């Protein structure tokens, strides 16, 4: 707080020195095509936000005499730069025409491109969606070109980015990430975004260290008129139709926007990935006058899609990059066993109060509905996954009694002939099952029913001409109902709700026999509440600007079990409430050498509560919380040099961020040095380090030709050796239990200096764009991506890896040197991608018609976007045996990127 005061005082002193006489610059902004006035066009001078156009397209700004460039930017239009000379008199610019940006169609396919399927074992979070609004060349490349390779800006998880709709934060509380599917397919109404990169101060909140994006969905911020578009692609979906209508702009009264879209695919790029989504949007805004307005918004994005899996090298070699074991042929079509079905509509009410220097934005949003993920359950029956290790050729090659090449060959041929799930066989198995035993196979959903209330109020206050103060208060409350639900018994009479390994009941108080639509296996509520307050002060001067922000967050989580699980005493009822109180602060300073060269330094110290998924060890079965759970501490620092020459612009940023005391919970089956079991692995005291340089340059060769170059040289590391413990149930049925206490402390995992699996750490792009005056354009980018690492298994980096589970003593051959050799982390292969985009638009009878096409990965390069080491081989002896042949059964699993794909879009606007 003391620092805050000092800066405030400093700013006031500076004001005295620089404040001068001001004159107005005014004008009216009009769309060149349909002659309609342009609202909410952002006005900038020397990178400084100086205002927005009004509802009738007019604008007025106050500025000091001299030479400067006024930059006009709007989401739909080509930015316009007006070099002006202001003498000591007011300047009236008259009508200024802005040209429709024909490249904006590109954003239409962004989310479909970068929301790849999430694996069950490892979630992928790519932040590209966050970046679509930016005109920063580095971030554009990151979103549009690197995104397909799962590149993450600065190596950050997307939970470090805050996404807001009309000022209300939308990040989920379970994993902290924004869930793009909640407004997927509504591209027309999400185009009006405001993005603050990294630690940059945002108008809307304290934000995350990756950045803050506010999506303005108010009808007054959208382009009036109607737009109908239709797309064809071979990425996640095959087709899309979308229509949006926004009522004409008026300064008073009622405004509305309606939008709807549908996207579908029998099969996307990956085999068997069906896609069916429809989205509806309605917003009404009522302006009481220039000061008060209210808005009511309803967003419904319903999305059902089939998943695809990460593959081992062996499986990818056998079946190819598009291979997906999750689906199976059925009748004359296909059925995917891992579908995601998201139906979580959002209702929102906003109030805006705007006087000359004060703005108060209040929002109440309620999100409800269901997020379900389907999967096949199997009970005393063989694993239905066709890539289960026992079914693959490597099983016979890696056999402990010696390689069996004959059987390996048979397994290979059989796999190639029938590589998919055999639905009919599952039905047959259920039919042959003893009727008293219940189903051998069922299809079920892991369901999360959320009731999420978000309340937010934000004030922006201009304090004199150089200062702005923002403050906000937000409250988010989540009640989620988590359970598994039988969706199809696959011909069986009922399901017996038991754990087949320990022969114990999952729901002691419920029925043993469960039927379709019954809740089984687990059932619990998760309650979470977050109260957040922030305040920030900004100072803007001709030569420099600065900001300082602070926030306070109080978080509480509590689980309530609804099933009494026979394996755990603390499965039923409410568990302890876990509470966190966190403080954060950030500050930034920009110094402008002149209008063309700026320097900027920003830093942050932020505490934050771990997300729910890293607080509860095994929430499906008990109330256990990670012992001595701590909040994460983030330290982030970056420095940027901005260049804004008339033809050359860009920036270079160096960044250094450290995440400390990170907690992580994973689960898997492991054959460890201390025994074999299905475990929950808890990592505590983990530090991550992200550092590097990012650089983007754009050179306007001529009015039509633009060249760009972008580079990211990062290093994202584990920066500590975290402590590892494993947890398991102790209700073995005659089987050996690792420890009667249900938990074993494995000590530290030696992972310091290993690389984080956060996408390619090196990325380079060269781009060229030609924009013809006759309304067509083409662009090409050549991209090189390298230093991408698979997620490491931490349990195999603990001392337990050295132990022979048979004897409990270390393997004699497990020397430091041998272990280091077998566990060495190697990057995935680097690769080049060439992407092409192009488009053309026509103006016919006041109607815009546009065509846009993009072709990604023109040369059909095979590349991996990410992966994870399987933790099964948890002891040295087993890993050596498994790796002898070069085709391990428990090899690292990888996601493969798309080959050559296209996206084609036709649109009409009127």
């Amino acid at each position, binding site marked *: 707080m003391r620092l805050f005061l000092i800066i405030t005082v400093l700013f006031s002193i500076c004001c005295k020195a620089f404040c001068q006489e001001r004159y107005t610059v005014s004008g009216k902004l009009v769309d060149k095509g349909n002659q309609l006035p342009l609202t909410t066009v952002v006005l900038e001078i020397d990178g400084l936000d100086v205002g927005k156009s009004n509802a009738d397209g007019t604008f007025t700004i106050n500025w000091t005499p001299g030479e400067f460039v006024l930059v006009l930017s709007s989401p739909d239009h080509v930015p316009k730069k007006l070099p002006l000379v202001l003498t000591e008199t007011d300047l009236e610019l008259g009508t200024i025409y802005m040209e429709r940006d024909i490249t904006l169609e590109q954003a239409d396919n962004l989310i479909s491109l970068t929301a790849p399927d999430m694996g069950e074992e490892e979630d992928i979070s790519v932040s590209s969606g966050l970046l679509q609004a930016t005109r920063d060349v580095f971030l554009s490349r990151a979103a549009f070109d690197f995104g397909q390779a799962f590149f993450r800006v600065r190596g950050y998880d997307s939970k470090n980015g805050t996404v807001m709709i009309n000022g209300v934060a939308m990040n989920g509380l379970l994993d902290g990430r924004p869930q793009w599917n909640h407004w997927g397919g509504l591209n027309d109404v999400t185009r009006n975004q405001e993005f603050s990169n990294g630690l940059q101060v945002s108008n809307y909140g304290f934000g995350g260290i990756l950045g803050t994006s506010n999506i303005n969905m108010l009808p007054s911020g959208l382009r009036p008129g109607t737009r109908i578009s*239709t*797309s*064809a692609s*071979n990425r996640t979906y*095959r*087709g*899309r139709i979308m229509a949006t209508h926004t009522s004409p702009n008026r300064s008073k009264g009622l405004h509305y926007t309606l939008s709807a879209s549908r996207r579908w*695919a*029998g*099969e996307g790029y990956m085999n068997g990935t*069906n896609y*069916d989504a429809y989205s509806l949007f309605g917003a009404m805004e009522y302006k009481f006058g220039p000061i008060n307005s209210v808005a009511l918004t309803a967003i419904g994005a319903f999305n059902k899609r089939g998943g695809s899996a990460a593959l081992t090298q062996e499986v990818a070699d056998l079946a190819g990059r598009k291979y997906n074991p999750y689906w199976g042929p*059925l*009748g*004359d*079509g*296909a*059925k*995917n066993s891992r579908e995601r079905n998201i139906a979580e509509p959002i209702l929102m009410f906003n109030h805006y109060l705007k006087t000359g220097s004060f703005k108060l934005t209040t929002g109440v949003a309620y999100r409800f509905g269901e997020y379900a993920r389907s999967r096949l359950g199997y009970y*005393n*029956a*063989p694993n239905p996954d*066709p890539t289960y290790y*026992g*079914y693959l050729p490597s*099983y*016979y090659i890696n056999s402990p*009694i*010696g390689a*069996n*090449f*004959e*059987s390996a060959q*048979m*397994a290979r041929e*059989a*796999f190639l*002939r*029938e590589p998919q799930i*055999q*639905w*009919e*066989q599952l*039905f*047959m*198995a259920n039919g*042959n*099952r*003893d009727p008293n035993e219940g189903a*051998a196979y069922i*299809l079920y959903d892991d369901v999360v029913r959320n009731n999420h209330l978000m309340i937010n109020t934000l004030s922006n206050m201009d304090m004199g001409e150089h200062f702005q103060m923002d403050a906000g208060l937000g409250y988010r409350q989540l009640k989620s109902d988590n359970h598994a639900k039988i969706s*199809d018994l*696959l*011909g069986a009479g009922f399901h017996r709700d038991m754990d087949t390994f320990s022969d114990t009941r999952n729901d002691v108080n419920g029925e043993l026999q469960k039927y379709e639509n019954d809740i089984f296996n687990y059932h619990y509520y998760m309650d979470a509440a977050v109260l957040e307050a922030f305040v920030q002060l900004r100072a803007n001067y001709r030569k420099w600007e600065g900001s300082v922000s602070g926030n306070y967050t109080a978080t509480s989580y509590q689980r309530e079990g609804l099933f009494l699980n026979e394996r755990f005493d603390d499965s039923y009822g409410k568990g302890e409430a876990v509470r966190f109180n966190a403080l954060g602060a950030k500050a930034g300073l920009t110094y402008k050498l002149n209008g063309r060269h700026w320097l900027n330094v920003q830093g942050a110290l932020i505490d934050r509560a771990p997300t729910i998924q890293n607080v509860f060890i095994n929430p499906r079965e008990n109330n256990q919380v990670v012992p001595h759970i701590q909040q994460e501490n983030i330290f982030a620092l970056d420095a940027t040099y901005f260049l804004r020459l008339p033809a050359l612009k860009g920036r270079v940023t160096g960044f250094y961020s450290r995440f400390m005391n990170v907690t992580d919970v994973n689960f898997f089956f492991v054959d460890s040095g201390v025994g074999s079991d299905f475990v929950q692995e808890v990592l505590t005291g983990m530090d991550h380090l992200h550092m590097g340089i990012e650089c983007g340059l754009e050179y306007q060769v001529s009015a039509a030709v633009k060249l760009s170059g972008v580079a990211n040289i990062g290093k994202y590391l584990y920066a500590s050796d975290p402590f590892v413990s494993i947890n398991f149930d102790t209700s073995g049925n005659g089987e050996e239990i690792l420890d009667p206490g249900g938990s074993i402390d494995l000590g530290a995992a030696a992972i310091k200096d290993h690389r984080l699996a956060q996408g390619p750490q090196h990325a380079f792009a060269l781009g060229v764009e030609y924009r013809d005056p006759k309304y067509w354009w083409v662009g090409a980018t050549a991209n090189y991506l390298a230093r991408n690492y698979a997620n490491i298994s931490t349990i195999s980096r603990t001392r337990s890896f050295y132990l022979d589970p048979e004897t409990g003593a270390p393997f004699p051959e497990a020397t430091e040197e041998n272990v280091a050799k077998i566990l060495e982390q190697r990057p995935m292969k680097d690769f080049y991608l060439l992407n092409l985009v192009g488009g053309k638009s*026509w103006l*016919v009878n006041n109607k815009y*018609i546009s065509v846009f096409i993009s072709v990604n990965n023109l040369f059909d390069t095979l590349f991996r976007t990410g992966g994870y080491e399987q933790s099964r081989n948890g002891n040295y002896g087993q890993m050596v045996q498994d790796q002898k042949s070069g085709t391990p059964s428990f090899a690292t699993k990888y996601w493969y990127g798309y080959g050559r794909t296209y996206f*084609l879009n*036709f649109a*009409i606007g009127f």
Partner: protein
Amino acid sequence: MKRISLTSLFIYAMALLFGGSCLKEVSLDAIRPPCKEEMEPTISMKEVKELYKDQVFQIQEELFMEGYVISSDRAGNFFGTLHFQDNRENPQHGMQLEMDLRDSHLWFPKGSRILISLKGLYLGKSGEVYKLGSALLSFGNLSVGRLPVKAVHEHLWVDCSGPFDIVPTQVQVDSIDAGMVNTLVQLENMEFVDADLGKTYADFEEETERTLQECNGEEITLLNSGYADFQAALIPEGSGFVRGALLMDNNKYRLAVRDLEDVDLSDPRCVPVPDEFTSTAIFISELADPENNTGARFVELYNAATEALDLNGWTLRRYTNANTAVSSTIDLSDMEIGPQSTLLISPNAEEFALVYGFAPDLAASTNSPADSNGDDNLELVDPFGTVVDVFGIIGEDGSGTNHEFEDGRAVRKSHIISANPIYTFEEWEIYNDTGDAGTTDLPRNAPMDFTPGQRD
């Protein structure tokens, strides 16, 4: 291009949209059973067996063989094998498939009719057991290995109309032959041997053998898995039938049940078979106390019947001198006496062999009933305690009586063909060194005055 027909543009766009999809999503209701409606074999199991010459080989022809599944891993007693025979009843042949598929009963339950596509499978034979499967090469020897899971579903098809009732072949242990291996058999009048009573079917996680016996005593091994559901169940003590797949390993037959429905031992245990018999055709035929050699003493018994007799439970008792209590006993239990044959008992087998030129049937100890000095009394007693035959009069020292054979010989007259529990002097010819009471005073010397092993 100034005038573009919007309609044509959209028609083109829509064509693009709907043309590209190559896979449609369908509902689970579209499921059809994967079993086969009609399955015609092209080769019989007998013919398949004949394909085998002398080593494991891979079948290259497009051949289809039918079989009826007789095993089941539902209860966990079978693992990694599927056993099948060539007919629902009266099978002539059986085979087994080695495989990696677990819980195979979910697709191939017992009684199902399967059609096996033989092309690509390996055929082998170990002992009398014909096996199909994959191959396993170890130390240069090719054997039949487990068929990979996905290959099992490729090679085995199931007939929709099953499963069928398989009629087990009724057999007795001693009528089992190698042709019945891998067929379903049922044995009646079975029970577990006494030594196994009180045990579980199998030890935990160990393959365990238990022994079944027919009431007539013929035995067969019951093979149980330590992973079976019924592993911890106590074996039943009664008798009844046991049904299962007949297996063979190391030339030894074994029986494996699918589950405990195959075991019905609810009847009382078998009535013990009599193994103790009495007979009046057995009697003492010669007693020897040679004057020249006490080491050459012996007792000869004779079986006058035309059938051999097991002497289980029989004893020979000696009452020394005037004793009324038994002085010594010889247990004849392990002996069998042939029809119209003798049984020779010697207290000094070595001397006996030296003197008479052959070994006695039974060697007894000195002072045993076979070592009498001629004034003692002997009784032959059957298993039920009845005195069947006697020499002398109990309580009366033989010296100077009509039952003294000191330094001599007592021999049953050759026309005597039946035992007599009352001593009757007339049945005997007696030589001694006194000649009292009608005996002959004529000491006898070995070997020339004796006839061991011969009935005059």
